[in-house]
């Protein structure tokens, strides 16, 4: 039996979200979405300054 991982971001169960096989993938997606939001905001600030 595989010993439990000490990685806090480990996949403990399937997220059950289409397109994602692990929670790590969900977190990465959310993080990338956040980066896109910040970049878009910075572009908005620059475009209309």
């Amino acid at each position, binding site marked *: 039996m595989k010993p439990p991982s000490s990685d*806090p971001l480990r996949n403990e169960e399937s997220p059950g979200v289409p397109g994602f096989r692990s*929670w790590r993938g969900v977190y990465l997606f*959310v*993080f990338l*979405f*956040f980066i896109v939001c910040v970049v878009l*905001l910075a572009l908005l600030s620059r475009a209309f*300054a």
Partner: protein
Amino acid sequence: MNLFDWVVLIGTMVGIAVYGAWRTRHTDNLNTYLKGNHNTGWLTIGLSVMATQASTITYLSLPGQAYENGIAFIQNYFGLPLALIIVCAVFLPIYRKLGVYTAYEYLGKRFDTKTRLLGATLFLLQRGLQAGVTIYAPAIILSTVLGWRLDLTIIFTGLLVIVYTVTGGSAAVNLTQKWQMAVIFGGMITAFVVLLTKLPPDAIHIAGAMGKLEGVDFTPDLKRRYTIWSGLLGGFFLSLSYFGSDQSQVQRYIGGAGLREGRLGLMFNAMFKIPMQFFIVMLGALLFVFYQFQPNTPVFFNQTEWQRHAQGPQAATFRAVEEKHTALHADKQNKIRAWVSARDSGEAGAEEKARAAMVAAQKASVAVHQEARDALRAVDPKAKVKDSDYVFITFILTQLPHGVIGLLIAVMFASALSSKAGELNALGTTSTIDLWRHFRPLAAHDEARNVRNAKFFTALWGFFAIGFALFISFAENLIEALNIVASIFYPALLGVFVVAFFLKKVGASAVFWAALSAQLLVITLFFLGKAYPAREIGYLWLNPIGCTACVVFSLVLQAIIGGKSPPDARTVPAA
């Protein structure tokens, strides 16, 4: 407001409260009462988390803040998605694994009773007082504008939330928050659409040229209140402490059908919080443009306060300020139109010149606004000189059609009720689980008695909040003091949780004294900032400082105390 507005307002508010109380009236199981129905889905959890965090201040004051200072405030939320990922990956699985009712119960299992009581007491103190402000803040604005009696508004709002929160506990809170969020989204989107129909075609360019769309500030300046750095680092620690260690949030996501539902509910917030806040601050920035083209834009938006003093012995001063504002406002309008024409012509030199004239007119306008505030303060030192909270409500009452006015007032009440319900629910739970059950351990197995006590404590905190809100009206500067208390008590508490989750070798005594020392450091820094304003740092920075201090002090104290890892650290999960 006419009869139609009243029907929409009362129907929405009372309807949701009665529905929530009726649907959950048979809740007599402790787990359901404290954590909600076991089949609660991720969307309900996500909306519940969102509803608890966003109070009326979010929907009423934030557009006003953006009207005055632009959309820079949104940077405060930059740390939130990152903090939620940590809560989701580390905090939530451990809370669920241990099956705790409160976050402080975990501290008791991981460390000892005194650390658990320290956490619970800090939470009860600051959240208990905040619950009074949650009712008072919207009541003072709405009663001022609508001419309602402040005490009756506070009592009505307070009693309504007590009824369904006591009846159904977490199950009722989750259920009502879902519908209240539907009202909030519906109302805010309607207001936004109506505003868009009233704006000139170049509205967004005007907002940008007037400096209202500076959403990201990369300046590495600690004294600036809102920059990407303070938002990322300070906002991260603030969000981590709020979502990870404040029971009013923890209680929203530890229930549900499974770990998956809690996680998806949190990820829903991590994704949609920034877009939602963007939408609200954009509403404020566009309201600014709208009022540039209104002939009767007031010099001071809290007209009740203004008129109260404008009729008095200093009437001539007030009239002079009003006349100055009217002349400047007309002049600014012309300069904005001139800038739009110059911009459309494509001549860079003319556009630059017109922009400088427009910005100068805006500066003059801000100076007259300051004169208006000074005039109010000169007449009455206790006068309410902050009018940005009244910008959006003025728009609602003067520009929206009947029915929609009722809906938007319902939005303000729905947001007050939903955040207050989350707070009361958490206060009742913490009082029962961390205090009452601790001091009456023999009664812990009597489930019916536990539910009765949870209901009793929830009601008690509800009545305390009403009483406190009524008392605040006699001591308004308490609100600021309470907000400060909240912001300086979170960091050390977060430090305790960070140590609990990530530093297995640190034991109870080390973390307890480290938390107290870190708390002392934060309070000292805060008061030093007040004593020497030139060196004061933005309050968001206190969060990383206090949390880091608690962690470092814990490690140092543990090294001094020495010995092996405490036995509890080996048996209770950490990350």
